[in-house]
């Protein structure tokens, strides 16, 4: 009976299909569950769901659990898993895809605010063309860690004194062309 349920889950598994349809996801069905990804992942010991477990959960159709999991947000993009996967699954790229899907479907977990950092970073780059560290850190810390802001301000002041924290954001020369490009890129959901 359990086996039957699993087979059915795989048949109606739109997250699995969605990942397999990605240019980087075609090999997801070749996962052997060998655990090499979890063994090479530097953050795996701190995760509730190791990368191997995430792939088992995807396979089992646990869509919401996967998209609400902290695992993709704790991925540091170090590509250890990707270069070591014997099935040649592009795991890091799939983690990016899970993050994008979680944001799009508003399934980001409140346990982590990494997605807020990523969204703020993207907003600043869309506006100025380059990242502005001071704005990013101020907005991020004020939003989520007002107490941490105080302890961080020492490092920030030190970096301002060495000239390594810009006060004014950079201005692009071709701002209009850049804006039109960004506007068009944002019309695509991928």
């Amino acid at each position: 009976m359990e086996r039957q349920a699993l087979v059915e889950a795989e048949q109606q598994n739109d997250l699995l299909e969605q990942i397999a349809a990605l240019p980087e996801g075609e090999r997801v069905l070749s996962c052997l569950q060998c655990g090499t990804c979890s063994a090479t992942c530097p953050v795996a010991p701190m995760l509730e769901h190791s990368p191997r477990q995430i792939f088992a959960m995807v396979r089992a159709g646990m869509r919401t659990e996967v998209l609400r999991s902290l695992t993709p947000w704790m991925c540091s993009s170090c590509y250890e898993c990707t270069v070591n996967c014997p099935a040649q699954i592009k795991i890091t790229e799939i983690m990016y895809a899970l993050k994008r899907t979680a944001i799009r479907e508003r399934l980001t977990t409140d346990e982590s605010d990494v997605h807020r950092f990523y969204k703020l970073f993207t907003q600043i780059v869309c506006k100025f063309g380059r990242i502005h560290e001071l704005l990013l850190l101020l907005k991020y810390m004020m939003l989520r860690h007002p107490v941490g802001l105080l302890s961080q301000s020492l490092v920030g002041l030190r970096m301002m004194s060495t000239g390594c924290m810009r006060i004014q954001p950079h201005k692009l020369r071709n701002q209009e062309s850049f804006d039109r490009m960004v506007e068009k890129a944002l019309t695509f959901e991928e």
Partner: protein
Amino acid sequence: MKYLYYPGCSQKGTSRSYEESLFAVLSKLDIEFEELDDWNCCGTTTVISVNKVLSLTLAARNLALARPTGLPLITPCPSCWLSLTKANMVLSEGGTLPEKVAAALAAGGLTYDGGTVVRHLLEFFVNEVGIRGIEESVKAHLTGLRVAPYYGCQLVRPYAPYDDGYDPQNLEKVIEATGAEPAAFEVKTACCGGTMMTTRRDVGGGMSMKILRNIREAGADLVVTACPLCQLNLELVQYRENSWPRGGDALPILNITQLIGLAMGISRKELGFSRLLLPGVERSIIGKQQQMAEAVGG
């Protein structure tokens, strides 16, 4: 000889010491780096986590701006190198992504059909300037200095076209060219924690601390990196935790160009030493150099 230079955002902010030392070294080598006009952020690992088309478009705009010059685009940042290289790869493949990126570029009045060669600075030093070229420019051999070559992740993963992905050697080659001795340690391609140093201090800090412990065990006097984020994170974790051994000094974390510059006899000011985060690091290197000079002199 002239090359096109893609700094990346860090070089204009947190990593000014990397850019200043790079230009000081280039002027000694008679190499001209012309900054890509009106460049933008490469997208790095952050934007691709939010919107993939946007991320590729940001990278592609830089490639498109560089294309008319016909010059290779050289960047000191591994994350920029990876983002730009990945965009080149994806845009040359089939599927709908290249069409979407082309449409976004067109909205901004740009086109890109491939062809911009992207190179990382470390590989440029090893293969273009050449190890012999660096050796010939050395005025003050850094004999006796034990230097830990820390690569981090994206310089060698997922692609390592110019080095061994599991046991890279390019940093070691440059260290040896300066007369210093590379210190072998296990975790030279481990991740520093990246942006988690800000978003998850517990996790990111732990990752950087582990690397520093390993380097200290290897008996290194200092660390060199070819990545602005690795350099910042290994300094930041020491600054925050005040974590160097009681009574001891912090472990200096230098950009590879600062090490080359020291060996060329360029002043510490020109090499951006005063912009490093850790106070006192300059002192500890000067101390070590004085010891070395005395040892040589005596």
